[in-house]
């Protein structure tokens, strides 16, 4: 029974592959538009090991990590600062919510003017989007620190700075990780879109777009799956760090 439970996550994958194979076999869809799973995964394997896909994959990873890192370095300290005073946060809340709601893709032209056509634009737009998400989560994490816990520290004689450092900072960590996971997902979306449309010569977005232009469907699907695996992997990466260092989260 236990062994069966462990296999459950693979059931959906198996069903998808079967339906996909049957669709190709029965020629429900034009085979040019939907290649078989085997030719897709072969394209992916060749692309990742010896083709251009692997290079593009790493390029996208690099851009996403840069933008998330920049966002985190700016947004975490700022979020702690804003969150430690509810009055300060309330005074900038509208601005944060407004820009958080603005589609980051709408900022491309502005950032193009500022940074030119190149990596700096892609990375900075993605960092901008991710930073707001992280900022918002960190600030809320600090603000929602349990009142009793803060009171407990105060009653033991902790100074304000000590409470911020020893209690609020740690209290905000679970929410900070929620922000980081959402932030990295958003950064990846923005980077991929940027790679498609703003004069890029590499990256997964460019790979998908180029394969589509060349009508190379196995390559296109391979690039899409690579992007999916990247998104999933980045999320899992942060989740693993979170479980490791924020062991009390949700308990």
């Amino acid at each position: 029974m236990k062994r069966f439970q462990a296999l459950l996550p693979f059931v959906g994958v198996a069903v998808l592959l079967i339906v996909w194979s049957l669709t190709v076999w029965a020629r429900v869809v034009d085979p040019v538009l939907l290649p078989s799973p085997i030719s897709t995964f072969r394209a992916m394997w060749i692309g990742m090991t010896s083709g251009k896909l692997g290079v593009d994959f790493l390029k996208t990873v690099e851009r996403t990590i840069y933008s998330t890192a920049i966002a985190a370095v700016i947004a975490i300290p700022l979020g702690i600062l804003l969150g430690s005073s509810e009055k300060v946060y309330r005074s900038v809340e509208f601005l944060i919510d407004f820009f958080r709601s603005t589609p980051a893709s709408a900022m491309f032209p502005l950032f193009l003017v500022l940074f030119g056509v190149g990596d700096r634009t892609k990375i900075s737009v993605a960092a901008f989007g991710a930073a707001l998400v992280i900022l918002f989560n960190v600030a809320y994490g600090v603000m929602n620190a349990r009142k009793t816990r803060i009171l407990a520290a105060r009653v033991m004689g902790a100074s304000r700075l000590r409470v911020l450092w020893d209690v609020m900072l740690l209290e905000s960590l679970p929410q900070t990780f929620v922000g980081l996971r959402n932030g990295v997902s958003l950064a990846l979306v923005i980077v991929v879109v940027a790679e498609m449309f703003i004069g890029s010569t590499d990256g997964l977005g460019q790979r998908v777009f180029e394969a589509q232009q060349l009508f190379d469907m196995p390559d296109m699907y391979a690039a899409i799956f690579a992007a999916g695996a990247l998104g999933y992997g980045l999320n899992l990466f942060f989740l693993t760090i979170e479980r490791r260092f924020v062991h009390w989260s949700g308990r």
Partner: protein
Amino acid sequence: MAGAQPAAKVELAGKLPDSSHRTAPHVTIRGLTKRFSDATIYDNFDFDIPRGKLISVFGPNGCGKSTLINMIAGLFPVDAGEILFDGQPISQIRFGYVFQNYREALFPWLRAFDNIAYPLKLMGIAKAEGKARVERLVAHLNVKIDLNLYPYQMSGGQQQLVSIMRALIVEPEILFLDEPFSALDYEMTLFMREQLQRIFVETSTTTVLVSHDLEEAVYLSDYILLLSRHPARAVEFVPYEAPRPRTLKSMSEADFISTKAHCLEIFQREVRKG
């Protein structure tokens, strides 16, 4: 009158021998006044807390039991009045405070041991010295729980015991407990009462306990402070002198039953007044 208090205190401490100093009240509350937006909770409230005794505060719902110890412990500001510990303000003394909600009062990112040692860290005591002090306290109280666990890995009772130890580690002059057992199940409550009684017998620390359980209040206390509805007055300060350690058997003895009945009668009279 409040102004004359510190001067009188100095004289007292200077002249009288140590033994009578020990019988002087530990905490003096004078002219305490507290208003919340729509209600006066305390109006010119005076009270003395005796030294080295365990007292319980009991009264109708919303009369300000917790507010009282929160003001005494300096968690809430007072609107007027003065609370002194041997003539000194709260900022000058060492005290311990145990919250009802142990889950939110402990630090889940620290192991139980480090939770207990945390107040020592705040006092700037070296790590090795702090460790030794925690180990001494553990041995002294004969506590048999694994302090390497994180709070969320422990039962509610164990967590509250850790909270109490965190309050005791500074060797407090006074210990406050705000309904410490009300979030525990009955079995655990009985166990924790014994733990608290044992700690009290061992340390004789002046202890103020807020309780909503009359049986518990009488069972644990040397005195039960019965409060009226707000603005709260001290209706009566009922002594209960059964020898310690008290056991479950004490609860079936005549003096326990009559003390509890007396408190209940006053309580009901005060409730009806509202």
